[in-house]
C-alpha cells in the first residue's frame, strides 16, 4: 500500500489557541480511517487543511504527492463536506446534487438518486429549511456519490436517527467494497463507527494520541477485575491507564496484550478479565495524556 496523504509537523495556530500542534501522520490508500477525538480536538481543522480549505501556520501537507492548495489535479480527487457546510442561498437539495455532479469526475448519479430515496431527502425543499438530519443526509449523499479517491466525512451522523445512521454505515461499506477508496471518518462516537475502521487516528487537543491499526488496538488493553490486593499484585510493573475501586474490588485497565502465561496467572489468582472497548480505551488514554500534560493554568482552590 502507498500513502495518499503525508502530513509533516503540521501546526495551526489561531490568535489564542493552537488547533494543531506539530502533527505528523500519513494515510494509506484504499482504507477506512477513523479520525477520532472530542469536539474541538482539531479534527475539522486537520481535514480543512488537507483539502486546502484552510491554511497551515507551519508544516507540510502532501496529497497524492503534491501540495493541495489551488491545485485542481489534487483537489478534484478529494471531497470534504463539512459538518456545518453552507450552501448557496435558495438552493434546494436537488440543486446541490446537480452542482456536485459538475466537479467530481467519478460521480455516480444512480447512487445519488438511490441514496436520496433511502434517506427520504426532500430534494425540492430549500436547504435552509431542512432539519439537521436532512442536512447531514445532503452531505452524506454528496460524499458517497462523489466516489472521490479521498473522501472525508465530518461527524456525518449529526441529527440522523438510528435507522439513517445504520443506513449510512451500510451503504458506505457496500460502496467501499465495490469501489475501494480512502475514507476518513471523523467522529466522537467511537464505538458506533469502530467496526468500520481499519485504522484510527486519535487526536486530542491538537496532538495525535494514537495512530494504530484498529484490531491491534482492540487487543491492546484489558481490564483486570478482582480483589484489590490480587489486582495490585498482578498489575505491578505493567502500564496501568485507569483504576477504579468499589469496596475491596479493584478494576485496573492495563495496556499490552495478555500472554497465555498471564492468563494462567489470572486464573490462579481468581481474577477476571473484561474487554475494553475502543471508546473506553481512547477516553482513558486521553485522560492520561491530560494528566501528564503540563498544566497551562493553575487551578485556584
Amino acid at each position, binding site marked *: 500500500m502507498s500513502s495518499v496523504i503525508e502530513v509533516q509537523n503540521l501546526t495551526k495556530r489561531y490568535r489564542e489557541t493552537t488547533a494543531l500542534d506539530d502533527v505528523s501522520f500519513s494515510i494509506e490508500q484504499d482504507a477506512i480511517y477513523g479520525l477520532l477525538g472530542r469536539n474541538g480536538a482539531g479534527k475539522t481543522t486537520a481535514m480543512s487543511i488537507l483539502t486546502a480549505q484552510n491554511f497551515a501556520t507551519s508544516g507540510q501537507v502532501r496529497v497524492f504527492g503534491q501540495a493541495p492548495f489551488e491545485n485542481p489535479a489534487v483537489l478534484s480527487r478529494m471531497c470534504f463536506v463539512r459538518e456545518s457546510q453552507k450552501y448557496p442561498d435558495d438552493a434546494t437539495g436537488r440543486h446541490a446534487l446537480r452542482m456536485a455532479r459538475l466537479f467530481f469526475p467519478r460521480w455516480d448519479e444512480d447512487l445519488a438518486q438511490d441514496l436520496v430515496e433511502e434517506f427520504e431527502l426532500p430534494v425540492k425543499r430549500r436547504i435552509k429549511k431542512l432539519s439537521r438530519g436532512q442536512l447531514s443526509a445532503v452531505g452524506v449523499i454528496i460524499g458517497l456519490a462523489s466516489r472521490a479517491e479521498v473522501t472525508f466525512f465530518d461527524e456525518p451522523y449529526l441529527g440522523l436517527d438510528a435507522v439513517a445512521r445504520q443506513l449510512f454505515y451500510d451503504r458506505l*461499506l*457496500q460502496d467501499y*467494497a465495490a469501489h475501494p477508496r480512502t475514507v476518513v471518518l471523523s467522529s466522537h462516537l467511537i464505538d458506533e463507527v469502530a467496526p468500520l475502521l481499519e485504522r484510527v487516528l486519535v487526536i486530542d487537543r491538537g496532538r495525535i494520541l494514537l495512530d494504530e491499526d484498529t484490531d491491534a488496538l482492540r487487543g491492546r488493553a484489558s481490564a483486570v477485575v478482582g480483589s484489590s490486593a490480587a489486582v495490585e499484585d498482578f498489575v505491578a510493573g505493567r502500564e496501568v491507564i485507569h483504576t477504579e475501586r468499589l469496596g475491596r474490588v479493584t478494576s485496573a485497565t492495563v495496556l499490552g496484550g495478555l500472554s497465555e502465561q498471564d492468563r494462567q496467572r489470572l486464573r*490462579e489468582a481468581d481474577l477476571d478479565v473484561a474487554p475494553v472497548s475502543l471508546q473506553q480505551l481512547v477516553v482513558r488514554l486521553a485522560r492520561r495524556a491530560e494528566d501528564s500534560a503540563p498544566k497551562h493554568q493553575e487551578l485556584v482552590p
Partner: protein
Amino acid sequence: MEEGRPIFVQIAESIEASIVDGSLSEEERAPSINELAAFHRINPATAAKGVNQLVDDGVLYKRRGVGMFVADGARARLLARRTQDFAAAYVDPLLTEARRLGLGPQDVADIIAERSATTRKEPS
C-alpha cells in the same frame, strides 16, 4: 461483534464454529469477504484478515476466481484443536481448583462420571 476483542479473530471463530457444528461442510463455498463485511457491518479489510488467518491455518483454501472453500479434513483438524483448547480452558482450571480442595485426579474423574450419569438422566 463484541467490542474489546480483535474483530478479525471473532470472524475466524465464527466461521470455525460453522464448520464444527456442520452448517458449513467441507468443500463448500465459505462466505466471501464482502458478504462477511456486509453481514457483520465491519470493514472488508478486517473480514479479509479473519479469512486469511483461516487460509494460513489450512481451514479454508482459495479457488482462483471462484472464492473461498472449506478444506478437506478441516473439521477433523478443528475438532482436534478444540479438544486441546478444551483441556487448557476447562480441565486445567478444574484441576487447579480440585488441588485446592485436596482432590486427586481420580476423585475428579469419579465426580465427572457421577455428574454425567445424573445429567444424562434429566431430559433436556
